[in-house]
């Protein structure tokens, strides 16, 4: 099979577009780094407290919800602040990377018409940027957990696996949405509405216990539920979750990545015509 090369091009090469795309991506890894650096730089350039600003919104949500649930609903949940904050970090990563992939794809339309780049660099760069922000926000999360008397256990090392799985899931969905956004310009606002519904359908800002048992099947068909659970569990209980969490999380991650990657690459030679 022919490999992607900067010095040889055959438009009728028989290689599979999915494989070729990732070979091209490897050759253009420097571009991914440039895109990520650009996004991080423009975000934190003007503020020394950049990371703090990123955390401000989830922290405020955490405080408000803790007061609401403990004072108004009189529901006592152990570690509720950490429960809310950790769930939000997973959600922020997922929502910003997927909508970021779509936005970059739209923004880069003029570029794609003028110069060759592997089309998936935009989605991959969105994941890279999300990862940097996610890792930066882990420090405040761990600090707050310690301050609130939550002991840190070795089980949090399993986060590495959670983050990898979540990245593959988000990349797959981001590629799928990027394909859609090439054909339908209003896909991005539609997706933002869907994200709001999706957030409320996931136990992130409310305790699982307040949802009646008959509705719990809704969580079991929700991929984000598994990633949120796998991320929270080591912090809240100090133990690694069981296979009932890992298996669906892995299946959703790899399945979405494969579907998204295949759909995206099967259409990617049309993008220069369409955007």
């Amino acid at each position, binding site marked *: 099979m022919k490999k992607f090369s900067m*010095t040889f091009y*055959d*438009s009728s090469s028989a290689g599979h577009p999915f494989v070729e795309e990732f070979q091209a991506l490897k050759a253009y890894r420097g571009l991914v780094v*440039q895109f990520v650096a650009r996004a991080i730089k*423009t975000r934190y350039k003007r503020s020394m407290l950049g990371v703090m600003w990123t955390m401000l919104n989830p922290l405020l949500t955490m405080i408000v919800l803790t007061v609401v649930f403990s004072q108004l609903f009189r529901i006592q949940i152990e570690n509720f602040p950490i429960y809310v904050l950790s769930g939000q970090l997973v959600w922020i990563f997922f929502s910003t990377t997927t909508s970021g992939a779509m936005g970059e794809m739209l923004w880069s339309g003029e570029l794609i018409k*003028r*110069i*060759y780049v592997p089309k998936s660099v935009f989605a991959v760069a969105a994941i890279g940027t999300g990862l940097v922000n996610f890792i930066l926000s882990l420090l405040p999360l761990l600090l707050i957990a310690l301050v609130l008397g939550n002991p840190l256990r070795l089980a949090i090392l399993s986060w590495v696996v959670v983050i990898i799985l979540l990245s593959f899931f988000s990349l797959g969905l981001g590629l799928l949405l990027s394909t859609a956004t090439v054909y339908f310009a209003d896909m991005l606002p539609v997706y933002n509405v869907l994200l709001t519904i999706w957030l409320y359908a996931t136990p992130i800002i409310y305790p699982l216990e307040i949802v009646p048992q008959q509705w719990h099947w809704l969580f079991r068909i929700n991929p984000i539920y598994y990633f949120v659970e796998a991320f929270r569990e080591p912090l809240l209980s100090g133990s690694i979750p069981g296979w009932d969490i890992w298996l669906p999380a892995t299946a959703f991650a790899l399945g979405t990545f494969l579907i998204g990657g295949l759909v995206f690459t099967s259409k990617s030679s049309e993008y220069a015509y369409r955007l």
Partner: protein
Amino acid sequence: MSNINITQEQKPVILVDSVSVQYRVPHEQLSGIKEYVIRWLQNRLQYKKFWALKDVFLDIQRGEFFGIVGRNGAGKSTLLKTMARVIKPTLGRVVILGRTAPLLDLGAGFHPELSGRENIFLNGALLGLTQKTVGHRFDEIVAFSEIGEFINAPLRTYSTGMVARLGFAVATSVRPDIMLVDEVLSVGDTQFQEKCLARMNAFREQGTTIVLVSHSMERVKALCERAIWLEDGKVAAQGKVSAVVGQYLQAL
């Protein structure tokens, strides 16, 4: 034995083999999902298809200076884009041997908010150059583009000429095997145009192949050996530059 060597040396570095490109334009601009679904249900999704290129054949040898002439909308830029991997031909095949520097639009890939310095690295990465390579060539790029102390200012403060100069300097910072040049020499002042031409000629002496799209017949005649004349996406004439340009000018 010697025959084989000759044929190998004469293997074209650019082969455009019976290439056709079809654009599909919807009758009306459908941008929304709702509209699309309604039309689809009514089975009224119709596209106007037109061939931007029809059965074009070209083979360009190593070290050649090749011209593409024709009226606006004749398919010149589309042809160049199929060589630059930007557009995949609907029919036919394009084979390129060597590293290609596309000079289709010198401002493409620059970010207005980033400084000239940051843009050099970004644009280098877009062209597939590594950070290290761009780092080594950095001073030379700045010198050639004559940007001076503006290098640390955001790109939005640059004039069109400065952007074009920077774009040309980055794209040609490492000698490419193939240069695809689309009218870009019309930007910038005469002095800079001369500088660009001098660099292109120097590259060519070292074996670079150059494909030039231009509306200036004097320039095409002065630079190119062979040329192609495109008319409505089809090859109207092909061969020695003087003959092709002569035929084209007569038809105007």
